[in-house]
Structures are given as C-alpha cells and as structure tokens.
C-alpha cells in the first residue's frame, strides 16, 4: 500500500515536471514577447530592456526554467542585489502583467469561489444522478425510467450557458425566488454565500447528474444480470437487499472513479459556470488571463488545474484499491 502510494506520488511528480516544462515553453512558443506584454501602452525600448532584465528574460533558457521551478519549490528573488530587489515567496509563479499582483495571491484569492461551486455541485449531481439512475434501473421500461432517462439526455445535451441563463431568468428575474448569483465568503456571510451559490450548483449539478444517471442505470442493469446476483437471490435475500447491497456495491465502483476525475477537473476551474454567473473563481481568472495574454497567470492556472487532476487521479486509484479487493493485491 505504502510503496504503491510512493510510486504514484513519484508518477504524479513526473507528470507535473512535464506540465511545467510545457507551460514554461508557452512563454517562448507564443509570438508575443513577454517583455512587450508586460511593458504596457507607453513603452519605450529602454523600458522594455529594463523589464526584460527585471523578468530575468535575458539569461539562458535552461537557467530561466531552473529559476522558474525553484520559484515554485522554494521561492525566488528577482533583481537580487539591486535596489529594486523583489522577494517572491514559495510557491512563486511570478507577477501578473496586468495587476502586478503575485500570481500565487491571485490563485489563493480565487480558489474559494471555485471550491464553493465544486463542493455544492458535486454533492448535488451525485445525489440526483445516483438516485435517478437507481430508480431507472429498478423500474426499467416504466414511465419513471423513460422520464428520468429523457431528462438525463436533455441534461447531457444542453449547455451551462443555456440552462444557466434560462434558470436565472425564471428563478431570479421572473419569480424572484433566488437572489442573483455571486460569491461572498462563507465565513463572513454563510447565508448570502449559499444563496449566491444555489443557481450555479443547480445548473452544474443538473447537467453533470445526467451522465451519472446514465452511468448508474447502465451499471446497475449490467450487474443485475451477473451470476452472483442470481446467487444472492438464491440465498433467499429480499429484493431490496439484493438491489441495494449486492447490485449497488458492484455498480458504484466505476462511478466513484468518474466522480473523482470530474471533481478534480472542476477544482481547476469551472470555466463556463463561473463565466456565466460571474463568479470570481479560478476558471474566470483563467479566461481573463487568456484574453489579456497575462502569461504568468495563465501558467499559474494551468499548473493548479494540473495539480488537481493529478491528485484526483491518485486519490481515485487509492479509493479504488479500497473498493475493489481484486485491485488490492495487484
């Protein structure tokens, strides 16, 4: 178990090294010159040279990459020894070209909003998806099944920016049941936080639950035809116990995997949801950075998203080891 974990962590670190090389390469593959981007509107050649020096773009590439990685691991100091010396504590990802704020600060500032969305939406989509999938599987070919599968198909086909805006129009503008979506800190204003989050949760939860409903239904139906379910029935177990213990236990395992990966991807930024509901999360930060070609922020958001996905993968595999005894020994 421990060796496995260590092996996976090393694997994850390797992936992160490749991701960091890749995003670092962005600086130089793009036609835009980072120094020019950071220079702003009233730019002179002298200023640009100064910035080039300040951003340490005038040293050899491998050295630049080394300092970039060192910045993440143990912090770095720009313009060391000079008057304008700038200490950037680890994990240092540089400074935004737009606002001059440290990228790490921006990421920390935006993460809670994304976490809030992911937290509520994931509970919602798991609850809705699993329960509607289970009901569908147990009441196969009845109107409940058809209704639930039809809803799931609609959910899987529709887009956040459609459903989100329609729901907002109906629930906020017309009926006035909800206040406008937005983000406030749950520590300071828990009620307002929940109110502002309900619409993003419902929208994202509904759309993603569609996939889970279909997965659960298909998984349950497949497991129901397994020999060991026939054995469970032959033992004299009630159909409730057969379905909710024996069938569900086997059907839920692959769903947990998908859930972990979806959650990991979402934590890196619920891009469209944040954009549609104007929630200041990591996804919105990323889209803003892209439209402003704010390279350090782009790099930061990509790395954070990659970290979440790598961690989610490791967690999913560990959970799988607990859920599936056959994987344990392998």
């Amino acid at each position: 178990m421990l060796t496995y974990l260590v092996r996976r962590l090393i694997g994850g670190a390797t992936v992160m090294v490749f991701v960091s090389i890749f995003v670092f390469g962005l600086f130089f593959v793009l036609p835009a010159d980072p120094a020019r981007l950071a220079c702003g509107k009233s730019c002179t050649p002298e200023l640009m040279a100064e910035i080039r020096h300040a951003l340490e773009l005038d040293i050899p590439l491998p050295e630049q990459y080394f300092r970039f990685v060192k910045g993440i691991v143990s912090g770095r100091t720009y313009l060391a020894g000079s008057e304008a010396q700038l200490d950037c504590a680890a994990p240092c990802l540089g400074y935004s070209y737009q606002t001059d704020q440290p990228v790490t600060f921006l990421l920390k500032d935006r993460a809670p909003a994304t976490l809030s969305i992911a937290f509520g939406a994931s509970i919602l989509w798991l609850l809705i998806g699993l329960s509607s999938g289970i009901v569908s599987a147990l009441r196969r070919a009845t109107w409940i099944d058809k209704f639930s599968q039809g809803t799931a198909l609609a959910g899987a086909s529709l887009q956040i920016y459609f459903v989100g805006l329609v729901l907002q129009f109906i629930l906020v503008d017309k009926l006035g049941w909800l206040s406008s979506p937005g983000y406030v800190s749950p520590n300071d204003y828990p009620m307002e936080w929940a109110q502002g989050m309900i619409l993003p949760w419902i929208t994202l939860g509904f759309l993603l639950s569609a996939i889970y409903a279909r997965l659960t239904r298909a998984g349950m139906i497949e497991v129901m035809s397994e020999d060991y379910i026939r054995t469970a029935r032959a033992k004299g177990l009630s159909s409730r116990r057969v379905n909710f213990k024996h069938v569900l236990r086997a059907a839920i395992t692959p769903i947990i995997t998908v859930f972990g990966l979806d959650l990991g991807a979402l934590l890196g930024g619920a891009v469209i949801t944040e954009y549609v509901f104007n929630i200041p999360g990591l996804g919105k930060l990323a889209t803003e950075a892209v439209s402003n070609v704010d390279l350090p922020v782009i790099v930061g958001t990509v790395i954070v998203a990659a970290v979440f996905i790598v961690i989610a993968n490791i967690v999913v595999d560990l959970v799988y080891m607990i859920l599936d005894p056959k994987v344990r020994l392998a």
Partner: protein
Amino acid sequence: MTAILQVKDLKVHFQTDDGLVKAVDGVSFEIEAGKTLGIVGESGSGKSVTSLAIMGLHKGSRAAVSGEILIDGVDVNKVTEAEVNKLRGKSMAMIFQDSLAALHPFFKVGDQIAEAYQVHNKVSKKVAKQVAVDMLGRVGIPNPTQRMEDFPHQFSGGMRQRVMIAMSLSCNPKLLIADEPTTALDVTVQAQILDLLRDLQREFGSSILMITHDLGVVAEIADDVLLMYAGRAIERGTVRQLLKTPEHPYAWGLLTSIPKLTGAANAELLAIPGTPPSLINLPSGCSFSPRCSYKDRAKVDCESVIPELAGVKSNSSHLVSCHISETERVAIFKSEIALKL
C-alpha cells in the same frame, strides 16, 4: 418414502423476437428424501432452466413458467417472490457451475456465508460468522477462521466451489440443486467435490438434484436419472437401469459414444448423427426422430405423434418415451447396442 420435491408438467417458455422458445416443455419428476436425482442432457436440453424454475429464479424475467413445483407443500410457481424467499436457502439451495462468477467479488466469503445464514436465522452477526467458520471447516477448507476474511478470487477453483457448498448448506436445506458443480474443475478436484457432496448428503440428509451433462458424474453420485432432450424428459429410471439397460435410442447413442479404454487404438468414435433441434421450431412428433436411426422400426409415425413417457413392462419404475415397441427395443439393444457398451 416421501417426496421432497414434486414437479408436475413443468413448462418454461421464453418469448423472443425470433419466436417462442420452449426451453422446457412438460417435465415431471419427484425427488425422495435423502436421494439424488441426476438430470442429464446436452446444452439446450432444458436442464438448467428446470433447476432455475425450481428455485423460482425465473420470476421477474420474460419466462412464462407453468406447471406445479411443490416443495414443503408450497407451489413455487404460484406464490410471490417474497414467499419463495422463505424457501430459498432454507428448503432448497443451489450451487452453480462457475463459482468465481457466482460469488460476489467485493464481499469476503465469510460474510457471504454469514449473510446466507442470517436471512433465515435471527442471530447476531457474530453467531452467523461462527456458523460460517464452522461450515468452511466442514467442507474441508483449511484455516477457516483466516480464510473467512478472504475474497472469492483468492481461492482456487475447487476451494471456491467448497465455499459455494458451505454457503448453500449453511441453513441445512432439504434439497440441494447442483447445476454442473464440477464442470469447471480438474478431474481430480471433480472427484473430491463429488465425494464431499456425498459425505455432506449423508451428514445433512439432504436430497440432491444434480444437473450435469457428464454421465460419469451421474454414475458416481446419482440414485435416479432423468434424461432430457430438447426440453422434454425422454427416459427416467435408476442409474443402473439407465446405464446398463437404456431404452431410448438417444440414450443408446450417448452411451455408445463413450470411447473405450479397452478398444482398438484406431477404433472409430461413434457419434449421434445430426444436431439438436432448434427450440423454436421443434420437430412435430418425437423431437429426436430426425436423428433417430431406428425410427423405421416403430409402428407409429414418429414424425407426427409425440410419444408418452411410459413405464416399461419389465419394471414400471423405468420410464421411456419411444414409439418403438418394447420387444423391438429389446431386440435392437441385444443385437446392436449391448456389444458396444
């Protein structure tokens, strides 16, 4: 002798897109206390479908089951699934061919056995687990207390089948249905499992319904045999009657097709000509008639009239469904079949 199980005119039909599949079409038999009945037939003869019908496991599927299945005075076919659940495990239990597929991959074997015991006995988890240890020990699994905690895939095929047997016998059922329990096992392990079943039968006093296509298994363990072909019973009698003086041309074909160790090394292997009929388009009359080499010896048109299962004159416990007269059959057996057995 009292019959533990009575099956009368059992029919199991499946409606499919291609037509009505008559998997079992009017089968009757009974099993007496402590006895073993072997149901023999090739794939598709309806033997497994029959066993599933007895357990009521066709309920909730597309199968149309008719006829009477009496066990403990209850007609399995007439009661609800909840009623059958009281019988399953307790009055009748079943073991399956593929023990790896038949045990839940995610639960420890000890828990699976304890669960089977707890369904019918109001005891604590602890007591049920003790029963599981006890049962595992009785079916010959070494270190049962430790093996309890293992998962099915951690056992060998033979040991896993022992786990299945332990689970099925945990509530001391009157009838044990074994659906090809040894087919997936090595020959040596096969013999061990059959020995185990026989010992446990003596110990528990259960009746066994042994479903198999292996005449060797039947010879080993059964008291009586029911021979099935295309969903119908075509011959029934004691093991001795079936193996020594078979009456049906299909039984002749089966027995003469067994290769002899004593024969010439290059002796031709005998086979029954043709293939089993489709269960959707059964031949009218005797379903075996298209493959029967002796049908011209019958006085009735085999291809239009279905023969009844009737007792032979010499011994009314030996039943056969064939249009060829008994004297004629005896003559054929003496002149052509006996030599090849």
